[in-house]
Every structure is written in C-alpha cells, then in structure tokens.
C-alpha cells in the first residue's frame, strides 16, 4: 500500500515560547474545557515553511496538560522521520500542576526505533519515541521540535481536534512560502478565513487558528473522523520530490504526472511470460473472461508482501521483477497485473484509493492531492467497468469487498488522471441466507442440517475459516457457532468465484442437551444460529449524525421438528419493525409438530440525523429481545 506518509506523527504537539511559568497553572484552564477531557492542549503552534521546493521545514511547539492515565497517550510522543526527512532538534519541559518546571526534556530522552506499520516487511521510516513522563497528575508537557523535509509533493493536513477527549485551549497553524510558491488549500469546520500576511522577510504567510474547542466523545456509528472536525488540507502547485519535480492543479494533471514519472515503462515482461499469457488467452473472445483468466494466473503466481522503500512508497516495482520474484506490494502487483493484461491486449488503469473497511473515505473531488493509501486496477470495459484487487490470492475476479468499494479513486492513465467511483455493494446484494432443518428429541438433543450462502460484500464473511485445514475449520466453526455441545458431522464449503460470487456453507450437526427439561416444561433457544448478542450502547446527548457504511440483509428460516406429545406454552413470537435505516421481522408458526421460525434483518447504509440514534438503540434492543426468545413447551 502506499502509506500516506506522515511526516509528523502527532501534529498536535506544539509548544510555545517559554511562557511565564505560572501561566501553565492548571487553574487557568477555562472550566468549560474540562468536561470529558483527559488532556487539554493549552497552546499549539504548527508551522510549515517552504524554503525551497526541496527544502521544507516543519516546526511544532505544543503545551499539553494531562489529567489522568487516559490522557497519557496524548503525550506519548512519536516523531517520524525517514530518508528524506530529518529531525533538526527536539526539546521541552515538564511542569507540575502549578506550572512550575519539574524536568527538562532533551533529545537523548527519546528512543530511536524503526517505525513499523504492522504489515510491511521493510520500510525506511524511523521514529523517535519519548519515554519520560510525570508520576503525578495533572502535569503539563511543553515540547518543541523541528523537521527538515526534502520534498514538497505532499504536506500533512492540520487536524487540531482529531483526538477524542482532548480539549483545545488554543491552536494555530501557519504556512509560510515565497510569494511565488502557490498552494491550494481546503478548510473545513474552521471559523473565519485564512489570514494572509507578508512576513518581514517578504514571505507569504497563511494562518489559521482555533480556540476554546471542547473535548468530544467517541460515538459509535459516527461519520469518518476527519470529516466533521476542523482541518486544513494543503497541496502544492509546483513541487519537488527526490529527483522529480512537477506541478498540478487538477486530478487530470496529478494523474498525468504520476503516470509519466512513476508508472511509465515499468510494464515490460519477459517474453516467455508474455507468450504464455497470449497462449492461455488465445481461445477466449470475451475480453472480460480473458481478463479473468489472466487475473487467476496472477493470483496463483504471486503473493502480497509490503516493502516500502525508495521514492516515498509511491513507485511500483517493475513488472519483470515481480515476474521473477513472485511477490510484491499493492503497487507492484497492480502494475504486474496491468502488464499481464497488456500482453493479452487488454487495457487497464492503475488507480489510487483510500482503503478502509470501517469508513468509506473518498478522494475529495474538488481538492486534487496525494490522498490514497492503496492501489487497485480498473478495467475500463465499455459499459462494464471492472475492478481488481490484486493483493489477494483467493478472492474472485472483480471482487473488491468493503475495503475499497463505493468511493472516489484516481485512475492514472496515459491521458492523465481521471476521478472514478468504485461500485457500491447495495443492501439487497449483501445477502446472507440461512436455511436449517432441526429435529429435537424427547431428551432435549438436537440434530439437523444447515445451509448458508454469503453474497455481495458478505462473500468473504467465512474467509478466515474457508482457507484452513478441515480440523482447524471444525474448531473455528465452533467458535462462530452459538449452539452449545455442538458435534459437527460434516462441514463443507463451496466457493462460487464467478462474476457474481457466493460462498456456500453446509453443516450437518447434532447437539446434546440443546433443550432443557424441568418441572414439566421443555425449554430451548429459538435462535442459536444468527443471534444478535448485544445491543447498541445508548449515548446521551449525542452530537454526531449516524452513519451506516454498508447495508446488509440477513434471512433465516429454521424448521424445528418437535418431539411428539409437546405443544407450545409460550406465545408465538411475532415482531415486525420498519424504520428508515432498516427493518426487522421475526415470527414463529406451529403446524402439527413443526415449528417454523422466519427472521429477516435488514440494515440500510446511509447517513441519518443524530436523533435517529436512539431509534437505532431501540431497534437493536428489539432484535436482541426477539433473538433471545426462549421457546417453552408443555405436554399436550
């Protein structure tokens, strides 16, 4: 993945020129900022100064007061640097609650580590991690550091309020450059306009500030974090990046620059591979099926390894290298697949995207800049645009999943960049259908068979289990399954990797003592296959609107054959709820000795106003209630 490289890990740490110490007394923090706050940014000044296109300085000064342990991460300082950025200095002080200096911070108080993003085999980033702290709360840390960076292609955004439970007393941001160095910027949720001035040295300075910003709470189902908080995003017009330079003012120009400088002439393949591709696709006339054949070839020949090295993690390895080594990161594998498709006479586009399963983060249409963290491939078939995720050896051709669906991406084509939108998995498409036939005997034991299909974005719900050895599958299935004492007789998976993919699961099982018999009553759980185990936590005074990223549909139908001589003692379940964000129905009917349970749950994606949240809590409570329905039988 192209990691959107953070030049500064925590931009929030800024400091201030040594204030008169008593100004840091915690009693001076406005009372309204203490609510929900584990830490308060007393003052923060962030400056980016472009001295030349390949010489940019970052200057951060911050003063933060920490009230309790949950606020500690706020001063868990990490300063990232790499081959093209270096730390000029780091220094600071620790103050007690009265604003009296208790310690000095030097650069040697920082540990130096290789930065790890958790998945890369190799990357050339390093991190300085601060390890001193204070034993007593509250305490205040003042910190100041400067970085020198040899590129101006991308600047980190200024997001002063990105962390929950941290209040901001005062924070400012300044961007300084030559009058001739043009920038574009986009400001969100900030009061006032940029203040543009000329410095004494004749430089142009843009500045923004924010003050008295109360701490916010994390609320479930909130919109993507950075999309409703104050921020400034910046992009250069003309920039330098290592040996490259260029300029852009549109997605078209940015894509063109990337294509010409980073992608062109990297798709050459060895003749044997090119010829082999031609031979295996020769008999296929439909270009889509041809592409499928090529994609499956790529999948069995390569595997994903992330290596972030060289030009900022932006340029893919050459196709012939991947052909030889058999592995690559997302850029390398997309570029390789593009090369293979080219050999089969199929055109494709290298596309940058921000991949995230929890939040759909789209490239901002009216603000061209480097925004992605991942690369996918687009096949621009007429009226049938097809998308390929190239880092996975098992997924079907054309399957994107929830990591990259339904968002803007940048296609880098020879003609320039094109902003495209990936397809959306609709609520009705993301369908899990389950059908079970169970028989209960006189002693409470259960036996039966269950078949489930997973479609749309749910195709990969069983991904982790399907790929395992049968003995491990059985263990894992028991972890998913809510039926106690389950004994699995057979468990089979079938993967339909066609253009409309589906996973099928079939299990034959029995379970001792599924039902409990006491004092003339026979009890059993109605739903042990798809039970919503907990509701949503209620949020008093919610602030954020409600965002549901992906819609899903679940349909279950279970038939229980009851032991002879028993009848229903509880009232049959019958629930139906309809809301703008979803619907739920569950009902039980009894016909002779057959009890049929039908359940349908549908959650629709979208953004709803904040008042909807309490309806959603009630909705899920009703689902949990119904799912926990306990069937009670008595002797006829």
């Amino acid at each position: 993945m192209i990691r959107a490289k953070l030049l500064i890990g925590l931009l929030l740490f800024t400091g201030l020129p040594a204030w008169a110490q008593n100004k840091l007394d915690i009693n001076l923090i406005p009372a309204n900022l203490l609510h929900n706050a584990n830490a308060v940014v007393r003052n923060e000044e962030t400056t980016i100064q472009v001295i030349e296109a390949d010489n940019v300085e970052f200057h951060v000064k911050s003063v933060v007061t920490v009230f309790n342990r949950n606020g500690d991460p706020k001063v868990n300082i990490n300063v990232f640097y790499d081959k093209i950025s270096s730390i000029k200095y780091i220094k600071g002080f620790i103050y007690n609650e009265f604003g009296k200096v208790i310690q000095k911070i030097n650069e040697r108080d920082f540990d130096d580590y290789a930065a790890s993003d958790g998945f890369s085999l190799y990357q050339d980033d390093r991190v300085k991690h601060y390890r001193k702290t204070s034993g007593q709360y509250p305490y205040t840390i003042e910190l100041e550091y400067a970085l020198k960076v040899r590129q101006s292609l991308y600047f980190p955004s200024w997001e002063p309020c990105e962390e929950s439970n941290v209040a901001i007393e005062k924070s400012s941001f300044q961007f300084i450059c030559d009058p001739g160095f043009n920038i574009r910027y986009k400001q969100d949720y900030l009061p006032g306009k940029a203040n543009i001035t000329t410095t004494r040295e004749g430089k142009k300075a843009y500045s923004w500030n924010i003050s008295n910003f109360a701490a916010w709470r994390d609320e479930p189902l909130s919109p993507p974090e950075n999309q409703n908080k104050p921020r400034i995003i910046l992009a250069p017009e003309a920039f330098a990046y290592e040996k490259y330079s260029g300029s852009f003012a549109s997605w078209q120009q940015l894509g063109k620059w990337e294509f010409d400088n980073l992608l062109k002439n990297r798709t050459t393949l060895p003749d044997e591979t090119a010829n082999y591709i031609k031979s295996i696709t020769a008999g296929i006339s439909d270009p889509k099926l041809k592409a499928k054949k090529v994609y499956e070839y790529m999948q069995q020949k390569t595997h994903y390894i992330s290596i972030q090295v060289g030009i900022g993690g932006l340029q893919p390895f050459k196709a012939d290298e991947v052909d030889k080594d058999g592995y690559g990161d997302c850029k390398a594998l997309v570029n390789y697949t593009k090369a293979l498709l080219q050999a089969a006479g199929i055109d494709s586009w290298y596309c940058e995207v921000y991949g995230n399963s929890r939040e759909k983060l789209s490239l901002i249409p009216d603000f061209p800049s480097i925004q992605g963290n991942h690369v996918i491939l687009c096949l621009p078939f007429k009226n049938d645009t097809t998308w390929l995720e190239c880092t996975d050896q098992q997924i079907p051709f054309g399957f994107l999943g929830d990591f990259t669906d339904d968002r803007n991406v940048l296609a880098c084509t020879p003609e320039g960049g094109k902003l495209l939108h990936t397809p959306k998995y609709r609520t009705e498409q993301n369908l899990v259908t389950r059908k079970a036939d169970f028989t209960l005997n006189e002693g409470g034991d259960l036996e039966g068979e269950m078949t489930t299909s997973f479609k749309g974005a749910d195709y990969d719900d069983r991904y982790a289990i399907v790929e395992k050895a049968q003995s491990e599958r059985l263990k894992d299935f028991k972890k998913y399954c809510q039926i106690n004492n389950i004994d699995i007789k057979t468990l089979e998976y079938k993967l339909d990797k066609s253009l409309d993919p589906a996973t099928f699961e079939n299990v034959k099982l029995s379970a001792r003592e599924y039902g409990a018999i006491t004092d003339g009553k026979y009890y059993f759980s109605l739903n042990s296959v798809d039970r919503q185990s907990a509701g949503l936590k209620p949020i008093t005074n919610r602030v954020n609107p409600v965002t549901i990223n992906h819609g899903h549909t679940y349909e279950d139908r279970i038939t229980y054959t009851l032991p002879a001589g028993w009848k229903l003692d509880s009232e049959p379940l019958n629930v139906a709820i309809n809301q703008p964000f979803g619907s739920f129905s569950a009902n039980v009917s009894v016909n002779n000795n057959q009890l049929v349970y039908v359940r349908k749950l549908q959650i629709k994606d979208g953004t709803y106003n904040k008042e909807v949240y309490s309806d959603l809590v009630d909705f899920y409570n009703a689902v949990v209630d119904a799912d926990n329905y306990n069937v009670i039988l008595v002797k006829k």
Partner: protein
Amino acid sequence: MRRILPTLIALLLFNFVATAQDFPYGKVDNDALAMKKYDKDTSAHAVVTNEYGSSHMGFDNDYRILITFMRHVKIKFFDNKEFENSGTIVEELYNANETSYEDITDVKAVTFYKDDNGNIQQAELDKSKIFRTRDSKHVSSVKFVLPALRSGCVVEFSYKITSPYTFNFKGWEFQSSIPKMRSVYEVHIPGFWEYNAALAGPLKLSFNTAKVERACFTYGGGGGVSGGASADCSDIVYGMTDVPAFIEEEYMTSSKNFKSAIQYQLVQETDLLSGVKTKYAKEWKDIDYFLKTYSEFGTQLKRTSLLKDRISPVIAGKTDELSKAKAVYSYINSTIKWNHRESVLSSDGLKQALENHAGTSGDINLNLVTALNAAGIPTEAVIISTRDHGIVNKLYPDLNSFNYVIAKANIGGQSYLLDGTDPLLPFGMLPLRCLNDQGRVFSMDKPSYWIDMNTGQREKTTTTVDLTLQSDGKLKGAVTRFSVGYSAYLKRTEIKKSNSPDEYLEHISAENHNIKVIKSQVSNIDSIDNPIIETLEVEVNPTDKMTDNRIGFSPFLLNQVKINPFKLAQRDFPVDRGMPSEDRYIITVHLPAEYTLENTTQPIAYGLPNQGGSFLTDFSADANTFTYSYITRINHSVFSPEEYPYLKELYNKIILAEKNELVFKKK
C-alpha cells in the same frame, strides 16, 4: 502443569557413532517436486522435508571467540496458502556495541518450480532483496522473502549467523507451525565451555548421538599470542523425524512451554590463556553471588539511602509496619509509571527511573524492594517468569528463563507479594501475568529459594437482585453487584478506561437488553482495597410472553454465560486460568397478590473431580415471594486435559440452568 518439564540430556555421551551431516544444497529434488500431499498430515499446506542446523565454536580474524550458527531448510509448498507465513524469513540480531555484535552471512535461497510449460526451473534469491533494519539500539533484523514461490514448488534456504556471545548459545526449534519430516541440530563444543542442554516440549528425540573429537580445538600461536591451549570437542547430534505442526489452543500459557525445542545455558568457561575456570551457573549459590554483586541488581538493592529521603515523608506518622509498607507501595506505583517492558534488572539504575517517572518492571520493583527495606520492612526480590514467557527451568539454575521481578515484603510472620507496575492493584495482589508456577526469592543476606506464585487471590463477584412484579407486567427493583478481589481490580481497570463512570454505565444497558437502568451508582472506584459496588435501580421487561396472559421470566438477569467457552472435544494442553474464581447470584422476586407462580425449578449440584469446582443452584418460594440463587466456584487454577471434559460439562450445566424460566400466572 509441572508434568511437562524439560528433559535433561547429558552433554557428554560417548560411544555413539555417526555424525549427522548437512544435506546437499541446491539439488533438484524430483521426489519433493512430485509430492502432492504430506501423508502424515494431509491438511498441511507445506512441509519441511529436511532441516539441518549446526553451531560451531571457533575464532574470528582477531582471535576472538566466534560461534557460527548455520541453518539449512528445505520446504515443500503444496499450494499457495503458506506463502505468507512460511515464505518470509526473519532473524533478529543483537549488537552490544561497534565491536561486539551478531552478524548474518551467506544468505542464500533457491526455489525449484515447474514453469507455465511444465519445465523445471530454478530461481535464486536476489541479494539486493535481503533487508536489514535497525529496530532499536541493540537489535536489528534481517528479512528476506523466498523467491518465485509457486504452488508445488520446493524451496531451500540457508544462512549463517556469527556471534561472539558464548552465554547465548543458539538453541533449536524442532517444531513450528508447519510439520517437519526431519529436523537435525548438531553442536560442536570444545571442552573449554560447558553447557547445559534442555529439551522442551512433549516430543522425544528420534536420534541423539555424541562423539568426542580429540584435540580438535587449538588456540594460540597466531596473531602474536604467546602460549596456547588445546581441547577435545563434543560433537552432539539431536534429531527428530515426523514432527507434527504445533497448534496453539485457547486458555493456554506460553507456547514455549509446549513447543519442542532445545535450549542451552552456559555453565562454565575456561580462559584460553590462563586456564582459569569461570563458573556461570552451576548452582544457585553462583547465581546468588552474581546477582548480589551485579550492578543492575544487587548494587541497586543496596541503594537504600537513595530512597530513604524520598520515603520518610511518605511513612511519617505511620506506626505499624503494614501501614508503612502500604504507603511505600502506593508511593512507588504512583511515582514510576510502567513502560510495559518486562525485566528482572534495572539497567539504568533506580535513580534514573525515579527521575524519569518511568521504568521497566525491574526498575519499579527493585525500587520497591529497596524502598521497603529503607522503611525498615524486611523485603526480598522474587525473580519470576510471566505467563507469556513460559515456565521457569527448574532442572538447573538458569537466569535466562526469568523475565520479571516482584517484591516480597515480610511483615509480622506473613509475606506479601507486590508488583508496583499498576496503581490499581491493591497491596498484596499480583496481575495475572505474574501468576505462573514458581519464583526464586533473593535477599542480600540469605541463599535464594523457591516459592509458589500463590497469593491466595481470586476473582469473586456477588450479585443480589430484588424485584417486584408490577401490574403492567414489568418488574421493578434493585441490583447490587459486588466485585471483590481480582474481580474488583478488573472492574476498576475497565471503569478507568472509560472516560467517566457514566460512560462505563452506558455499557450495562447495552449488554443487558432487557434491563432499563433508571438510576445507578458505582462506589469505591478509588479505594482500591475495597470491593467495587455497583448499585442499579432497574426496570425489567420480561421478554417472553406466554399464552393466556402468563409471563415467563428468566431468573438469570445478568452475567449469563450462554455460550460454553470450552468447545473442543478433547484438549492436548492444560487449561490455565491463573487463579480460582467464585460467582454468586441471588434473586428475590415479590409477586402481587393476584399473581402466583406456575412452576418451580429443580436444584442443581454439579461438582468437578478433586474438589476442582462446583455449580450449585437453590430455589425456594412462599405465597408471594420466591428466591433463586446459584454459586459457581472454580477452585483450581489449572485443569489437566483429563479434567477438561468435566470443566466443559460444568459450563453446560450452567447453560441448561439459564434456559429455565419461571412462569407467573394470574390467580
């Protein structure tokens, strides 16, 4: 748990013949290429067909001792599913300074595969794709990806690691996440060094040979060094065949306790020039002496004067030893924050940790021991191995098998085990990670000795519910939940993670769908020696409507188990929960005059063998009131695989009981 102890293999075995040898590198192996599956484990995605390693002691160019470790592995990949796990090789290297470091050389790898046209091809590892990163000051790692992996391919790789560290002689893992057909390790050790070897894990060696090479190791003559020395060498081969893949199970302690591997510990070293023997760890008294005099341990424990000034205001006015000890304990754990690094030692010294307000477990707890001694409370240091780190080696003294230290304060004939890494831990309670088998107690004036890591602590909760049925079919009343002992610690940790007690209470409603919390209160959050008491005023909506306007009510209002945590048909490794637990629940329901109870529930009594635990329920009713209660007791910390089915059945009994409902009907 003590059953699976390492088996000692005596080093100097004679009279065996045969020396294992490395198998040839880089030859096309048609049999392996043709293999379709591994017969002994048909579900394996890959198998190590052969693996050979060796360690030799020799010299570098400056006549310094150098141990050369070599590893050569051949893997057959049946499909592409093991590429990610077994296709990347990582080795960590340690460096003490510019002149003393481990190094890796001769890294090579070759993959044999059938190309698209079915012809056998080979691909070599490109040397430029061997990555080296400096992870931290003393550790770097070397990584490479096996080249051109394809389904069905056979890969060989090998490398050498040179090390000047005779105290860190490389061990060997016979078992890994994929099965191995053959795994052999050969060591070649001159008589100047003596090591203990320990075999961990349940598997037996398939072969083990040893021979003595006469006068194989000569030192001196070269490099202007006068004098000289010569010794015989032991050449020992350890081998296993048909090694199954190692698969972790839930609720087990460190996999190191169970994975088959061999480890070495330096016992004695003879100086090559003077012939003087240095004993490292023959007996505990040697280790005692070493620790007592070591700058990062014993020297630190002597620094009572450093702590005296700091703690005198803390203990001022306290008269008895226990309250002094408690004051010192809370001073240390609030003054020094744990940086989440585990250590037996205080490498930067006590003073540094006090000034930085941060440190390792060694920094904090050696400070604690010293501070308690400074306060006049006789306190010893206990070195231990945490649960993730594995069980300590008891066959011979081995400092390397410890990774953590705690304090043992002796007050009025009673001893208290203390860990100052978490301010939420009450005096005398240890975090779960420390509850692992035994620890070794050190003091400056007595020989060391073993103690059980048993603090008598347990998880304990008591919940009482009192409800009255209303005319609208709802129940109203109060829930009181006491979390005692370790349960209080866990609850406190959870509450402190929330940004406010209110935020914590929001969870209760989410977890218990049928309970509406009207008013709530949590007491004793900050008084860590006392139970946490949650008091809730609740409204309960019995979900199960019955025919004829009756109401079904499940007395298990809170804390339902619902899903058995133990799911396996059988288990290979013990279940280790660290400490006993007790969960009590009592519910009383008052019915209005117009209602009566239709049914009852039978009392249940289920006990585990060896008094390991029990589940008991009780029910009693009179005209308008009934009371239902249960107690779940788990008395042991560890359950053997033989006891596993009973433990599983205990949970089954709980779940069956949870299904029962009581039916209220109108008179």
